[in-house]
């Protein structure tokens, strides 16, 4: 199946031996999906740019205001009244701050929230689902009932309450968002574990005298990695959206710090006078979400060839 579909698309693929691993197969399939690969590299590039470019000397400080250099156009260099030379790649905002470096610094917060909150939700969801599925019986019923009840909760509302109570701490924002995004992950992992736990390798592990905990951590969870990777890729954009909504409502990142959500909010408030403030961050944010969603779809096709796209 793999070699035939490879020759269809005309991409030269190394002939795959029978013993190739699931991961390798998936990587080959992913590489044939051009859109997913493009999204993958795009996402890596955006992340690197956000984190590395600000280290280059000469990139303006994102929070420094230049009262005499307000609303500059793109690709302009100017000298402030303190004699400082500033180059505006995408122009400056209503306080004379560099839009480009503000987008980068906003990206660090947005991506940071995306990664960290996803990590929190991944940890909770995988452990919860694996324990429920492996132990089974009454505990499983109770644990999944709790998930059902939590599913019915209006999460946005819960997050808003948590965030306002705990006074806009950025770190808490990560944890709060992560703590409400784990439900689907736990269901996926539980389903996987249920189908794995009666297989011989678990039997073997048990007969070797391994504890339940060790079986779950060392033997079951590594085997659920495919669906977990797919869902993780889709959780990152979901979390970034949630963070952006909170920042848009003024409940997330507080000024002078920025995230893509708060930048879009600033732009929306001033869209009549200066549309660049709305349009640049919107494009970057939407493109990143695009890339992550396409990558998630591509990974799903690659890791689980049974459920093809249509």
């Amino acid at each position, binding site marked *: 199946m793999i070699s035939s579909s490879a020759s269809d698309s005309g991409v030269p693929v190394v002939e795959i031996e029978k013993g190739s691993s699931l991961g390798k197969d998936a990587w080959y399939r992913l590489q044939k999906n051009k859109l997913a690969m493009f999204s993958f590299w795009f996402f890596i590039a955006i992340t690197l740019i956000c984190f590395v470019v600000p280290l280059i000397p000469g990139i303006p400080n994102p929070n420094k205001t230049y009262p005499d250099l307000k609303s500059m156009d793109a690709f302009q260099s100017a000298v402030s009244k303190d004699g400082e030379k500033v180059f505006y790649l995408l122009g400056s905002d209503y306080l004379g701050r560099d839009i480009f470096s503000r987008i980068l610094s906003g990206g660090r917060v947005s991506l940071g929230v995306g990664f960290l909150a996803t990590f929190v939700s991944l940890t909770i969801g995988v452990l919860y689902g694996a324990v429920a599925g492996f132990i089974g019986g009454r505990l499983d019923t109770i644990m999944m009932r709790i998930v059902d*009840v939590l599913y*019915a*909760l*209006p*999460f*946005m*509302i*819960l997050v*808003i*309450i*948590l965030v*306002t*109570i*705990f006074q806009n701490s950025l770190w808490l924002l990560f944890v709060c968002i992560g703590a409400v995004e784990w439900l689907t992950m736990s269901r996926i992992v539980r389903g996987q574990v249920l189908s794995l736990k009666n297989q011989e390798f678990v039997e073997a592990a048990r007969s070797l005298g391994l504890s339940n905990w060790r079986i779950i951590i060392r033997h079951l969870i590594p085997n659920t990695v495919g669906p977990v990777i797919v869902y993780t890729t889709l959780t990152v*954009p979901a979390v970034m*959206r949630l963070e*952006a*909504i909170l920042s*848009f*409502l003024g*409940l997330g990142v507080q000024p002078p710090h920025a995230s893509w*959500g708060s930048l*879009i*909010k600033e*732009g*929306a408030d001033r*869209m*009549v006078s200066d*549309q660049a403030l*709305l349009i640049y961050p*919107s494009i970057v*944010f*939407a493109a990143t*979400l*695009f890339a992550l*969603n*396409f990558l998630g779809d591509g990974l799903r096709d690659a890791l689980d060839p049974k459920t093809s796209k*249509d």
Partner: protein
Amino acid sequence: MEGLKYIGSRILQSFFALFCIITITFFLVRLAPGSPLSDEKAIPPHLLAQMNEKYGLDKSIPVQYVRYLGLLSRGDLGPSFANKGFTVKEVIAQSWPVSAIIGFLGLGIALVIGIPVGVFAASKRNTNTDYFLMGVAMLGICLPTFVIGPLLGLLFGLKLDWFDVAGWENSTAWLLASLTLGLYYAAYIARLTRGSMLDVLSQDYIRTARAKGVGPLKILFKHAFRGGITPVVAYLGPALAGLIGGSFVVEQIFGLPGLGQHFIKAAVNRDLLLINGTVTVFAILIIAMNFIVDLVQAWLDPRRKLTTS
């Protein structure tokens, strides 16, 4: 009989979920230190004493909780501390029509656009039309509400001057607000409908119908539609919960005085009873919607077992 039993147990479940939500929010908002009244200098001492008397705000949290449930069961949601002179009930009564209109109109727009687009794309499977429509839908999913909203405002409000961009009284901003709210769900529903229609269209009974010579349109609407629409109906529950979250953003963008605005303000000002009140309203809405969705699903797909689990 089976059906009645199912409905009964679902109603019980719904009330339990509602109770959980009210309880969780009650204790959650009181986790933070300080009484909601302690920093309100403007309240005269005799009024304060009166309020403490009635709502037990100087008592321990469990006592407050029992009192709150008692008052709630009689339909008393208490006073709003931030909106002086208003009770929570009055604030909600004033603002819910705004949210209800944009919410349900948004949902309506989502269904009216999403389902036909999805069915059409499925019938044109893997053609350029299909790719184009699904590409646009992906765009709709990836562009967040708070990007679409201001852009629509910029285009239809400021450039074309078809709609007002803000306000509620004598303003058409609510139309733009509903559109903003609906577009994301329209995109999602289109993708969902396409996927499940393709699922249904590949089944044996459709092939049988085709072999018997049933026309393509009749197959699409008479045979496949009912099965293909089931996931969309199932999605309506979560969609409504999402719409409520989306309405917070949309009300902010278009300056509409809806429930969402009051909820956010209440959360920021720590107006505890107003938080509890609005959350209760949202929870009732979501739970009722999930209940209706369950019933409609059972009606659409009789094979679905009416079990409580």
